[in-house]
């Protein structure tokens, strides 16, 4: 949970965000804020517009209209600065399978402009934290899935960004590994790095500080899991989701 003194530290500030593709409105007047150190869950049915929104937040695409600030930078004109200050991990794995653990970390460290000495320091910290030391020179494809995912996450936050975007990071992984992964997420958030995560696992939604649910291009719910369960009178976030999120019309 984030402390009250972080309340005013907005890392994502979105007002009336609209994204249109031709006449199709993918994001329809989105309004939300994410604060420093929060674990923010971004949920929604397939086709609801989540990916579109994330692409805008990560500087990959420009909004059609509305104000969007990420890490304090404008999503229209300062996408380069946004990219320097965020981390990203997608479901399909961000690490190169034919490179070693060390080579991958060196690559991303370099891309994010970290000095060599700093990269080396972080490598050993990271390996120690994950108890990975013997894997330093292992080729990624030789490692088990759970290990790879934890590693990918560590690489995504290697440069201590302000926010890290996680796109369904725990897909296909066993429950024990998922739990370990979420412990890493907690640690990261406690360090002040905001975690913006999308997931289809409703139990993971319960772990978030706040969640938003998108449906048909709009945000239909935005609050803490507890508050949402109370409002919709359900036991689980999953039931809230089923109640208010509508699948793509055929």
């Amino acid at each position, binding site marked *: 949970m984030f402390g009250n003194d972080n309340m005013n530290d907005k890392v994502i500030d979105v007002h009336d965000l609209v994204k249109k593709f031709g006449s199709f409105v993918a994001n329809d007047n989105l309004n939300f804020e994410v604060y420093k150190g929060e674990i923010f869950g971004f949920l929604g049915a397939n086709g609801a517009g989540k990916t579109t929104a994330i692409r805008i937040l990560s500087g*990959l695409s420009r909004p059609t209209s509305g104000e969007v600030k990420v890490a304090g930078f404008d999503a229209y004109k300062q996408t*380069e600065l946004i990219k320097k200050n965020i981390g*990203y*991990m997608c479901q*399909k*794995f*961000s*690490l190169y399978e034919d490179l070693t653990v060390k080579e991958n970390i060196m690559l*991303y460290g370099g891309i994010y402009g970290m000095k060599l000495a700093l990269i080396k320091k972080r490598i050993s910290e990271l390996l120690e934290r994950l108890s990975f030391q013997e894997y330093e020179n292992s080729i990624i494809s030789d490692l088990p899935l759970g290990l790879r995912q934890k590693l990918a996450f560590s690489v995504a936050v290697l440069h201590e960004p302000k926010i890290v975007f996680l796109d369904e990071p725990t897909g296909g992984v066993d429950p024990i590994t998922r739990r370990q992964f979420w412990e890493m997420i907690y640690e990261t958030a406690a360090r002040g790095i905001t975690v913006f995560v999308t997931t289809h696992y409703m139990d993971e939604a319960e772990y978030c500080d706040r969640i938003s649910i998108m449906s048909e291009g709009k945000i239909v719910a935005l609050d803490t899991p507890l508050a949402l369960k109370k409002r919709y009178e359900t036991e689980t976030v999953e039931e809230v989701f089923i109640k208010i999120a509508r699948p793509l019309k055929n």
Partner: protein
Amino acid sequence: MKRFIGFVKKEFLHIFRDYRTLIILFGIPVAQILIFGFAVSTDIKNAGVAFLDLSKDEMTLKLSDKIISSGFFKKTDNLVNYNDIDKVFKTGKTKAVIVFEENFGSNLLKKGKANLSIIADGSEPNVATLVTNYAMAIINDFSRELNRPATNNSILIQPEVKMLYNPNLKSYFMFVPGVITLILILICALMTSVTITREKEFGTMEVLLVSPLKPVQIILGKVTPYFLLSFINVILILVLSWLVFGLPVKGSITLLLLESMLYILMSLSLGILISTVSKTMQQAIFISFIGLMLPTILLSGFIFPIENMPKIYDYVSMILPPRYFIVIIKSIMIKGTGFYYVWKETIILVLMTIVFIGISIKKFKIRLD
């Protein structure tokens, strides 16, 4: 049995739904027949012939006329002296030069024999052989007609055949430039398109795009190793062919290397373009191979001369970059021409490169938004 049939049905559906298997099953055989039927020809049509007539008498004019009116040749030039021969071959329009010695006609009538030379462009051995044979046949026919009134074959025209640039008519003169052309475009276009689509397929492209790396840096970074390695490849092939076949570069090596760099650049940008339209590596490989390798081998003038093909193949080959580079590399390597003779092809390659890069950038921008 029913199970079996159900399974066979599924296999048919796979085949018909995937355009690639349809192309392989039907498109390629049809294309092969059409191409091989027309491209591989043992006939010549309108082959350019120039005359160096040192006699200019009735005989030479009659023989020249006979050659031109045969339908196999068309006259490109009347040369004045021996220096013109090299020049006229360098333009590429002339395939053979007929040289009549001085006093050809009087020698023939008084001494019973006269000399002429057939000098062919040896840089294209296939064409040279054909052209020479056809010319000889026409000349022999001419001899026979002259002899008809007499009962003994007392008149003899002795043609001396010379293959310029390639005296022993070695086929590797044709193959080495062709192989360089083929390998460069294949490696550069294929490898570049594969490495870019590989990132797309494995999802690492998204991560790169979100990183501080600018798209142009990503593309350049992908392309640079292949540029360097291909360049080394060219040098390697040239050195090898010199050591193994004794094939030197007749013209300026600097010009050859510069043109090769241009061609490599063009092939790399073609690879980038292919990657913008391919979603998977498999697609990229398919397009590069079927779309590039086969047409290059068959239609670019690598083995089968374009002049002997029906006009429509000529037009098709105009969009193939290798067609132009083969002309450039053969001219420089084997005929020793300078930039003056290859500037047209060079400009075309430059334009193609610009077009490929332009379209790729446009497609990339669309994707980003």
